[in-house]
């Protein structure tokens, strides 16, 4: 892990910043963890419905995944376990930069497979009103911030593993 940009006690202007970043990390971790766990607990969950409704540049890739049971199963596992593991990393502050990176990739894919662009109509009902910007892309950016301002070596299990000066 590169730590040129890491916040440490000397670069922190105040603790409020640290607590803000840690809270953001914990909340996103909670969100991803539950997204993953709820899928793991539901034997009928599949990414197929989401993929079939995919629009824009990845729609043919989505179709190819759905039409191949092996690929679909792999995709399902990547999502279920990927979200669970990234969620745990962020929440507990363990390898949390990897967690942020993984979460960023997953959520960016959700965005790219179904972006809220003008003219793209989706079959599933939306839970909000979006034009270009939706909560996914905001969460991606939040994870981008967390990746570049890691906090787990200050508050989190990484501190125990690698020490705060890491």
């Amino acid at each position, binding site marked *: 892990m590169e730590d040129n940009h890491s916040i440490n006690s000397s670069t922190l202007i105040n603790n409020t910043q640290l607590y803000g970043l*840690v809270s953001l990390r914990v909340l996103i971790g909670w969100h991803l963890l539950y997204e993953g766990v709820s899928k793991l607990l539901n034997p009928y969950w*599949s990414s*197929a419905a989401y993929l079939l409704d995919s629009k824009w540049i990845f729609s043919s890739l989505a179709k190819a995944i759905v*039409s191949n049971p092996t690929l679909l199963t792999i995709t399902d596992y990547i999502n279920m376990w990927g979200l669970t593991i990234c969620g745990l990393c962020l929440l507990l*502050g363990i390898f949390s930069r990897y967690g942020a990176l993984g979460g960023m990739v997953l959520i960016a894919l959700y965005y790219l497979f179904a972006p809220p662009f003008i003219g793209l109509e989706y079959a599933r009902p939306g839970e909000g009103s979006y034009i270009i910007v939706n909560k996914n892309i905001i969460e991606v950016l939040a994870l981008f911030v967390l990746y570049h301002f890691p906090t787990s070596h200050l508050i*989190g299990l990484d501190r*125990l593993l690698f020490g705060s000066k890491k």
Partner: protein
Amino acid sequence: MKELQPMNDESKNNQEIKRREFLKSLATIPVFGLFLVNLWIKIRGDAQKRKNLMLDLIQDKEPPAIISSLSDSKHLNIGVIGYGGRGSHLVRGVGFATKGWIDYAYNASKENSLHKAYATFMGQDDLNCSLVGVCDLFDVNADLALDASQNDIRPGGKPKNTAVRYKHYSEMLKQDHIDAVIVATPDHWHSRITIDAAKAGKHVYCEKGLTRTFDEAIDVYDTMKKTGMILQLGHQNRQVEANDKAKQIIDQGLLGPVNLVELTTNRNSPWGAWVWTIHKDGNQKTIDWDTFQEPSPNKIPFSQEALKRFFRWRCWYDYGTGLSGDLFSHDYDQLNQIIGMGIPKYASSSGGIYFYKDGRDVPDVWHVTLEYPDRDMTVLYSATLSSNNSRGNRVMGHDATMILGGQSNAGGVGGFRVVADRESTQYRERIEKGIINTKYPIYNYSPGSKQIDGVTSATSQYFANKGLLYAYRDGKRVDPTHLHIKDWLDAIREGGQPKCNVDVAFEEAVTCAMATESYLTGRRVEWDPVKRRLI
């Protein structure tokens, strides 16, 4: 203890730093704990809800397994009489497709990876059969059937025997080496061919509706019983897992008393209204028109009108019964499979030709009321050929309603859902406690929901919603037509009766005949089960 091991200031400081280090490392653990507690509450709550819902009430039985191939048992020689659209599908169910169809399905799967027809066909069990006899009054179709019998791109590879064409079905029935025949002619030929075939010692797979008239139904029933030959009627819904599940739910009384059932057909395309293509090669030389119209009450000389009637026969009572034999029969049989209500005491029907004013004499909007006073139940059937508004089929109980097909189809095919009634007696306590929410289904069945296929056309979607296109066995998509053929062949080989045997076929035929009779005579028709006649 402290006095025995006194700490100096420095070590105290170190200890304090370590303690703080440790606390900071574990600072988010309580949040994780909170997460786990909430997760546990959620899981426990869901489990409790599920326990109180139907999932637990339904004694889950194993899904029907894929019956292993009987390919090492007796090889069967099959003949097909009538190789049109449906006939060719049935023959694919046996395992034979034309080169043209293989090319079409293969290319379609290359263009669209969600097009599964080719994979589904090639994935079928080899049923250890040969297609040895072909009979069709249209030369083009007969040639296609011969082509299919020779094609070795099929499950099981090179066919053992290939087909011979017979100009008339009676010639085919004389062939000793033919074990069984598939009858997929227009309805006006069904009873005669079925009866002659059974008398000639051939087992019969006959397309629905079984017969065109009531008298024919009696004759077919009596002949099959007398000869002991095995009849399978072409209601492939009998192979659909969802219908077995639905039956389980109803058998356990989870809907409460059912006094009303609504069945619907909703189509809105010329194809769906039987305005089928008149083949460009169809003419007096390629079509045996005289034989075609031999059993029909009214006869016309060969002409443009005759050509229309030959290819769009469902539009005339001379050859079929319109909605009755084509679509009402399916919905009736599905309900009969689930509820087992049999032949009604009374049937009345009405409708008209309101949209397709193309010279047909069968209605395009048509409704039937079936009365079952012994069961305290009415079955309503309502059909339109000029609206796709999918109304689904509803089994309406005092405690809950089961919605099959149509709008109940949430992602899967051939699924259904059950919604509790807010005035239910059986569920009152659970509704009051908030365990059952009448806004949401208490049971949802979407087979194959983890396996998606590209059902695109509106008509395909219509059949898929009714569970007629695909069935699921162990999550694998199979064509119920193939399963239905296999069920018939298994019964031939092993003894026993297939799922849509002569008894239920007779119920279908009599019920459809009652509904048709009521429409044509404008009066309510009564079934006399003792004297086996219509009053």
